[in-house]
């Protein structure tokens, strides 16, 4: 057992850290909560940054060269992702779905033409992708998907609605779950499509969320024509492919998430060392010290559990249902930590960014509200616990669910 990087990995890491220090966008500052205030500016910043990574040989480290990758190891990719997460996660955010979900799906389940067509243009920052899984009546029950795709003259004709589609408003393409056969059991009648977001008949309506921003969207499909060759895998395999996508999202994502949270811990400690209560620093209060310590411990758990899962995947393991643990280990502590930090700030915790009384430019106010989505997005905590209970512990499914699937 060894938790250290090899000397080669450490040298690579140092090289990347120093490259990154010299290649951050000029307008970007680590001290502002937000550096980009419009969707267009944010998407543009991501694309420019991704292009810079690509040109310097730091994009898609572990993908083959023929698809625009670097042909190196997954560990090198993780080192790049961790460093970015720890330094400038804002520049990565618009690409999270693209790189974390669209890429592994296309690379694992797509055909040769699809890989050659789409992967290089993702890796060089040309395209942003979104993911159309959730619908008004398919939340936790993803397989209840009702968006129809009917074959007609070498095309699918799409009708229906997706919702909670992150970054759809800045996306060029979408990975889309559709129903191609309404006559079979619900998870058997689904197919997986790659859809150009500029196709006629697609309408995107941003949804304002709890933070006041619009990261999510409703996406409407009205008589949208998609060529048959844009289907991934066979007709009816959509559910299986969607599950694969979700599992790949986990391991690398968790390893990256820990790095972002370590940055958050730094910010938390900096806050505790500079914020006063009753003439005393937060860091000197014995009750808050306990909470600060627990936050540090929670992030260590996420980090070392993530490394253990990653190590398993590096040794050829396929990410399995235990990935659901990682989801719970980042989403729930993030809520606890941001909530505890607000409590430490007393009445100042109410103040948003941009005033002399704001703390750390409103970092925790945004963080607290955004964290409320963490236990809902990418599979609710309840769904994760169902997966763990049924697939890791082999507990029986509930009777009504078994009856409905028959």
């Amino acid at each position, binding site marked *: *057992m*060894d*938790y*250290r*990087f*090899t000397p080669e*990995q450490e040298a690579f890491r140092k090289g990347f850290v120093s490259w990154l220090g010299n290649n951050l966008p000029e307008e970007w500052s680590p001290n502002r909560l937000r550096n980009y205030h419009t969707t267009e500016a944010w998407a543009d910043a991501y694309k420019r940054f991704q292009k810079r990574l690509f040109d310097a040989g730091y994009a898609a480290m572990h993908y083959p060269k023929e698809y625009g990758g670097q042909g190196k190891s997954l*560990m090198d990719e993780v080192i790049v992702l961790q460093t970015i997460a720890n330094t400038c996660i804002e520049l990565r955010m618009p690409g999270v779905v693209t790189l974390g979900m669209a890429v592994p799906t296309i690379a694992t389940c797509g055909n040769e033409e699809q890989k050659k067509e789409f992967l290089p243009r993702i890796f060089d920052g040309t395209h942003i992708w979104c993911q159309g899984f959730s619908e008004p009546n398919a939340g936790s029950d993803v397989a209840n998907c009702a968006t129809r795709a009917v074959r007609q003259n070498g095309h699918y004709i799409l009708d229906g609605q997706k919702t909670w589609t992150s970054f759809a408003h800045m996306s060029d393409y979408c990975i889309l779950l559709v129903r191609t056969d309404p006559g079979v059991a619900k998870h058997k009648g689904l197919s997986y499509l790659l859809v150009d977001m500029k196709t006629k008949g697609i309408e995107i309506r941003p949804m304002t969320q709890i933070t006041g921003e619009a990261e999510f969207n409703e996406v409407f499909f009205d008589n949208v024509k998609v060529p048959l060759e844009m289907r991934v895998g066979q007709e009816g395999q959509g559910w299986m492919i969607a599950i694969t996508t979700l599992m790949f999202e986990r391991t690398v994502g968790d390893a990256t998430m820990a790095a972002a949270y370590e940055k958050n*811990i730094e910010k938390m*400690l900096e806050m*505790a*060392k500079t914020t006063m209560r009753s003439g005393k620093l937060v*860091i000197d209060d*014995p009750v808050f*010290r*306990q909470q*600060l*310590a*627990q936050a*540090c*411990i929670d992030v*260590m*758990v996420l980090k*070392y*559990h993530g*490394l*253990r899962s*990653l*190590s*398993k995947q*590096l*040794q050829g393991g396929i990410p399995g249902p*235990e990935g659901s*643990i990682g989801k*719970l*280990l980042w989403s729930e502590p993030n809520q606890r930590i941001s909530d505890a930090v607000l409590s430490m700030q007393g009445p100042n915790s109410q103040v948003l960014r941009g005033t002399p009384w704001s703390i750390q430019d409103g970092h925790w106010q945004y963080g607290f509200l955004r964290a409320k989505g963490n236990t809902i997005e990418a599979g609710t905590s*309840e769904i*994760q*616990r*169902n997966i*763990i*209970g*049924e697939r*890791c*512990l*082999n*507990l*029986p*499914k*509930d*009777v009504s669910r078994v009856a409905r699937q028959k």
Partner: protein
Amino acid sequence: MDIKFSEDQVEILRQARRFCENEMPMTYVRTMFEDERGFTDEVWSKMVEIGWTAMLLPEAYGGLGMELLDMSIVLEELGRAVSPGPLFSTVLLGASAIAEAGSDAQKQRYLPAVAEGTMRGTLALHEPGSGADPGYIMMEAMRDGDGFIVSGTKLFVPDAHVSDFIVCAVRTEKGGDPSKSITLLLIDAKTPGLMISLLPTMDGTRKLCAVEFKNVSVGKDAMLGEMNRGWGPLRKVMQKAQVGLCAECVGGAEKAMEFATEYAKVRVQFDQPIGSFQAIKHRCAQMYVDVESARSLLYWASWAQDHGDANEAAIAASAAKVYCTEVYRNVSASAIQVLGGTGFSWEHDIHFYLKRAKANEVALGDLAYHREQVIGLVAQ
């Protein structure tokens, strides 16, 4: 980065699981729970034979020179079996202190005997006023010629009643800084003036004693390490032992989870197995999350004691002590809820797990103590 067991470690695990199942079934645990001594010579000598008393000791003194991670694998299995007996106190407290701080002569005299199983020892830290702070050491040792006279009381000393030697932390200099005022004394358990009595505690699988010192006179050769410099080695000994407790906690929590999940699959109410209800399923799923994440922290903390720098080793030990003991407590308590009335009965074995969990939570520093250690180290 490579986070998996070596082939040898997989074998250690297999052997330990088999040993516990064959030699320490619950019938043995139940008998020893009521027994004053708390173990049989037969089981002890089999543990010695398999090498568990020698694993952590240096090869130069009859040991096997293995790493803490190897020992953690064994302790995880012992925790799974809520194994009674003085292995933990002898290996991770008494002998560990001699290996860390002792002179060559002291090591020669004690360590081969520990490895061979002919000698047992423990560590006396806690005092009536120290609460959960293992560093609050006020019992004074007065200089008496070359040696010392010791008077006072040490509490919660594990297995002192079956120990041949006791490593005792005493104060030899007034003032607040423990790193300049604590000395370790290596005292024969039969020294006149030393009185050992068993404390009636909830967890009968790990015996705790009160050790009273009445003008106990020890010679110069009793000093373990340097005068007033006992705190440094003591911290290292405690860190490894804390990680050892974490290993027990992970093993015990996993077994508690298995009790609950197996029961949830077969217990039928409202015409279906209770494990199909989300109220029960999610409780069990949380146990799995807790056990596996605690295990991840345990492996890192074990590894860090042998390979990390001093800071990483200290942070990892305290973080793991908080997380793994809390997980054991929560999982064993939650398992009782899933087991319902059965879980509340003396007949079911789950209560031994809850009791060990509560004992481990406060041993060698409780949650509040270790959180304070963590924040002190990361925010310095």
